[in-house]
C-alpha cells in the first residue's frame, strides 16, 4: 500500500472511530433500556406460546419469516461455496484424490483417540440443544453447529480412508442441508393450508416439557438439521480442496 493511501485510510479510520465514539454518548445509558417491543416479546412468550425461552420464540415465532430468510442465506452461501470450489478446468490434468505416500501418517494417535471419544457426547449435547430450544438457552442454530462438529470430528479422528470417501458422504450432507431448509418452509405452508397465514401455528401449544411452543420445536429441528448439514458440506468442500492440492 502506498504512503498516500495509508494516510487516507488512517484519517478515515480516526474519523469513523471518533464519530462513532461521539454518538455512543447519545445512546440511552447502558442498563437503562426501555422499549415496549422487547418487553412485550419477553412477557408474552410463556402465556401465548408456552415457550420459556423468549429469545427462541422471537427468532422462530414472532420473527419466523425473517428466520426463514436467514436460513436461506445460509443455504445459498453453502451452495455458493460448493460452486466456487468446483474443479477448475486446468486442474483436470492431475487427477484428484490420488493417494500421496505418507498421507495416512498425518494424524496422531492422540487426535484419533480424543476425536473418537468426543464424537458421542458432542452428538448428544447437540441433539439436546436442538430439541430444548424453546425451553433453555440454545436452539436449532446453536445445536446444529454442535451436531455438525460432532460428525466433523470423524474427519479429524478418522484416517485418510474416511477423507477419500467424502464425495459419497457429501451427497448425504447436501440432502440434509436441503431437507432442513425445506422443512421450515413446509411448516410455514402447513400454516397456510390449515389456518390461513404463512407460518401460523398449526400445533397445540402444550403445557410443559418438550412438546410445548407449537411449531417452535419443529422449526428448531429443521434449522438444526440444516445447520449441521451446512457445516459438514462446507468443511467437506474445504477438506476436499486440501486433498486436491496436497498437504502444504
Amino acid at each position, binding site marked *: 500500500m502506498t504512503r498516500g493511501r495509508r494516510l487516507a485510510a488512517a484519517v478515515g479510520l480516526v474519523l469513523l472511530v471518533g464519530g462513532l465514539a461521539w454518538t*455512543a454518548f447519545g445512546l440511552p445509558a447502558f*442498563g437503562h433500556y426501555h422499549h415496549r417491543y*422487547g418487553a412485550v416479546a419477553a412477557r408474552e412468550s410463556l402465556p401465548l406460546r408456552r415457550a420459556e425461552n423468549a429469545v427462541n420464540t*422471537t427468532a422462530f415465532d414472532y420473527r419466523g419469516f425473517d428466520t426463514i430468510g436467514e436460513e436461506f442465506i445460509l443455504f445459498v*452461501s*453453502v451452495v*455458493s461455496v460448493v460452486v466456487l470450489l468446483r474443479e477448475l478446468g486446468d486442474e483436470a490434468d492431475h487427477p484428484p484424490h490420488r493417494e500421496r505416500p505418507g498421507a495416512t501418517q498425518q494424524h496422531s494417535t492422540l487426535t484419533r483417540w480424543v476425536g473418537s471419544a468426543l464424537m458421542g457426547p458432542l452428538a448428544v449435547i447437540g441433539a439436546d440443544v436442538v430439541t430444548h430450544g424453546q*425451553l433453555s438457552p440454545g436452539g436449532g442454530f446453536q445445536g446444529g453447529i454442535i451436531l455438525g462438529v460432532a460428525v466433523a470430528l470423524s474427519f479429524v479422528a478418522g484416517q485418510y480412508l474416511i477423507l477419500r470417501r467424502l464425495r459419497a458422504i457429501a451427497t448425504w450432507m447436501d440432502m440434509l442441508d436441503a431437507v432442513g431448509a425445506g422443512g421450515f418452509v413446509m411448516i410455514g405452508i402447513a400454516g397456510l393450508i390449515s389456518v390461513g397465514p404463512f407460518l401460523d401455528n398449526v400445533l397445540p401449544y402444550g403445557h410443559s416439557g418438550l412438546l410445548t411452543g407449537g411449531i417452535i420445536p419443529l422449526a428448531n429441528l429443521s434449522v438444526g438439521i440444516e445447520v449441521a448439514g451446512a457445516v459438514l458440506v462446507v468443511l467437506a468442500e474445504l477438506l476436499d480442496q486440501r486433498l486436491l492440492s496436497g498437504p502444504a
Partner: protein
Amino acid sequence: MNVFPYLVAVWLLGVGLYGVITSHNYIHLILCLTVMQAGTYVLLLSIGYVHGARAPIFSGIPASARVVDPVVQALTLTDVVVEATVVALLLALVIQVDKRYGSIDPDEISRMRR
C-alpha cells in the same frame, strides 16, 4: 460506566478495520472482519441490557420478572449466522485466489494484476 460497553463496540470495529486495511494475508483479513463484526454483537447486546434483570428464559423465574430484551438477542443470533456464511464464502474465494495467483497477499495480487 454508562457508555463503556458502547465504546468497547466502537473499539472492536475500529481495531478490526485497522486490521482489514493493513492486512498482508487474506485469511488474516477475514479474521479481522470477524473482529469488526464482534463489535456489532457487543453493541446489540449492550443496548438490550437492563440493570438487575434476568435472562429472558422463564424457567424457574416468575413470569413477572424483569428480563433483558430478547429481540436484540435474536438479532444477534441472526448476525452470527450471517457472519458464519460470509466467512465460509470468503474462505472459498481465498482458495480460488490462491489457485489463480499463488499468493494470498492483497498487495502482491494487486501488483500482479497491473
